[in-house]
C-alpha cells in the first residue's frame, strides 16, 4: 500500500486526494450552473407578479 503502515493511514492518504478530485470534478461539472444572482431571482418574481396582476386586471 504505497509503503504505508496500516489501512487507516492509507485510506486517509487516498481520501485526501479523492476529496480534492471531488472538488475539482464538482467545480468543472457545475462551472456554469447556478448563475442566477439573487437580484435576477428577485426580478423573476417581480415579472411573475406583474403578469399575474395584468391577467387579473
Amino acid at each position, binding site marked *: 500500500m*504505497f*509503503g*504505508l*503502515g*496500516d489501512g*487507516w*493511514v492509507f485510506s*486517509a*492518504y487516498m*481520501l*485526501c*486526494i479523492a*476529496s*480534492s*478530485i*471531488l*472538488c*475539482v470534478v*464538482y*467545480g*468543472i461539472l*457545475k*462551472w*456554469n*450552473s*447556478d*448563475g*442566477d*444572482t*439573487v437580484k*435576477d*431571482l428577485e426580478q423573476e418574481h417581480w415579472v411573475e407578479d406583474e403578469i399575474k396582476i395584468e391577467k387579473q386586471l
Partner: protein
Amino acid sequence: MTISLVVLYLLIIAFLGYLGYRKTHGASDYLVAGRDIHPYIMALSYGATFISTSAIVGFGGAASVFGMGILWLTVLNIFVGIFIAFVFFGKRTRIMGYHLQAHTFPEFLGRRFQSPFMQKFAGMIIFLFMPLYAGVVLIGAAKFIQHQFNIDYTTALFFFTLIIAVYVIMGGLKGVMYTDAFQGTIMFVGMLVLLIYTYYTLGGFIDAHSALTAMPVPPPLAAKGHTGWTSMPSFGSEFWWVLVSTIVMGVGIGVLAQPQLVVRFMTVKSNRELNRAILVGGVFILLMTGVAFISGSLSNVFFSKNVNNIEFCQITGAIMEVCPGKKIVTVSAENLARIRAQHPGAQINDEIDLHQGRPHVPTRNGSISIVAAGGNVATVIPQYIKQSMPKWFGLLFMLTLLAAAMSTLSSQFHAMGTAVGRDFYEQIVKDKTEAEERSVFISKIGIGVTILVSVLLAYILPKVYIRGEAIIARGTAIFFGLCAGSFLPAYLGALYFKKITKAGALAGMIGGFSVASFWLLFVHAAESSVIGLSMALFGRPALFGKTLGIVDPMFIALPVSIILTVAVSLFSQKPDAEHVDKCFKNI
C-alpha cells in the same frame, strides 16, 4: 537579497490594499466586499484565511510526532471545510444573507432568528475571544520574523501588526481579500515545491514511505500509544484521543462555524461563483495541510538517516544550532518524556544539566525530528526547511509563512472590528439611521481596538508562559472549540430547519458556550492547567481526572448545544411563518 524580496512583497501588499481602498464606497463594500468578488479571489482568500502559520508550522510539527494519521485532518479540511462548507452551507448562507441584508455572521444569525440579543451575544464572543486566536497567530509570526531577521521580538511584533492594520482599516474586506488571494498564490507555489522536493530528496514516493514505516518507535512515544509514523496510534490511548478528538475532529469540524470564513460566502454574486471556488479551494487545501503533514512526517526519515550529513549533538540528539544542551533545563510536563529517556529519575520542576558537564561533541548519527529540533514541535518544520532545502527555497518559504499569517490575521481583525461596529454599536444606538452612517467608522475604530488587544496579548502571553510555542496551538484550539460549541447548531438550524425557534437557537448558543468555557477552564487539562483558574479555586490543575481531561471541549459542548437547540425549539413559540418564508425564498 532577503530584504529586497520582503520589500517587494510588502509593496505588492500595499498596492493591493490601496486597490481595495479605492474600490470601497460604502458599508456594503467595506463589510462584504460589495457582494461581487471573483471566484478565484474568493476561494484563495477563504483558503488562505483558513490556513494560518500555525496550521503549517504548528500542525506540520505535530505531524512529525503523530505521523501520517494526522492526514485525516486534511480529509476533513477538504471534505468538510471546503466541499460541505461551500455546497451545503455556503450557497444557502449567500442567498439567505442577501434576503436578510446581513453583513456579518452575528448579524446573519440575529436577523434569521429575529433576535438582536443573539447578534450582540455572538458579536461579544467574537470580540472577547478572537483576540486570543489573533494574538497567538501574531506570536507565531513575530517569533518567526524575530529568528529570521535576528531582530527583537517586540520590534517584529510592532512593525508586522502595523502593516496589517493599515490595509485592513483602509481597504475593508476588499483590501483583505485582494491581499489574501495574492498571499494564497505564494502559499500555493511554496507548498508545491516543498512536496516535490521532499519526495525527491528521500528517493521517491514509495521509498520515502517505506523508510518511514520501517522506523522503530522510541519507548517514550510507544508508551503513549504511538505505533509508528504510518499507522494510527493504538485505539483509546492518550495519543489516539489527542489525535482524533482534538486535532482531527476539533479543528476539522470546528471550521464550519468560523465567523471570518462564513462572511466570505456573502461576498460573491451567485452560487456559480461558489461552484467555481470549490475547484480552486479543494486543490489549495490539499497543497497546504496535506503537504505540511506529509513533509512533517517524512522529516523523521530525513533527520534520522541524516540525509544531508548534518551535525547533531551527541548528548541531546538535537541539531547543533538548536541543541538545548549546555544550559540547564527545567523539567516540565512537556519535555518530561524526552528528558527521562536519558535521565530516568527526572521529576517535574527538576533542573537538569543535559550535558552533565560534558563538552558539546558533534556526531553524524541522526535522530527523529522532535529530538533533532531540541524537543520543540514548532521548530521541526523551520529546521527541516533550513537543513534540507536550497537557500532560495528558504526565502520562498519565509514569504509563504508570512503570507499565511498575514492573511489569517487580516480576516480576524476585520471580523472583530465589524463585530464591534456592526453587531454591537449599531444595535445599542437608538437612532438607526445615524448608527448605520457611522457603522464603518466605528468598525474601523473597533478594528483598531481589537488589534491593540491582540498585540497586547501577543506581547504579554510569551512572558507569562515561558513555553510560548504551546500557547499557539492552545489558543487556536480554544477559539475553534468555542465557535463550534456556540454557533454550529444555530447556524445549521438557520440554514436547514424552519422549525428551529429563536429561544431554541439562543438556548443552544448560550448552553454550548457555557459548557465549552467550563470544559476549557476546569476539565481539559491542556488548557485548564495553562489558564490556572482550576488550580486557584480547587487546588487541582484539572477536575474529573486524566481520562476526561484529554477529551476535547467540542466533543461535549457540541452535543449539549444540539440537544438544547432541538429540545427548547419543541416547546417554545413557533417562528413567524412570513419571516421564515422570506429567509428560505429561492432556496
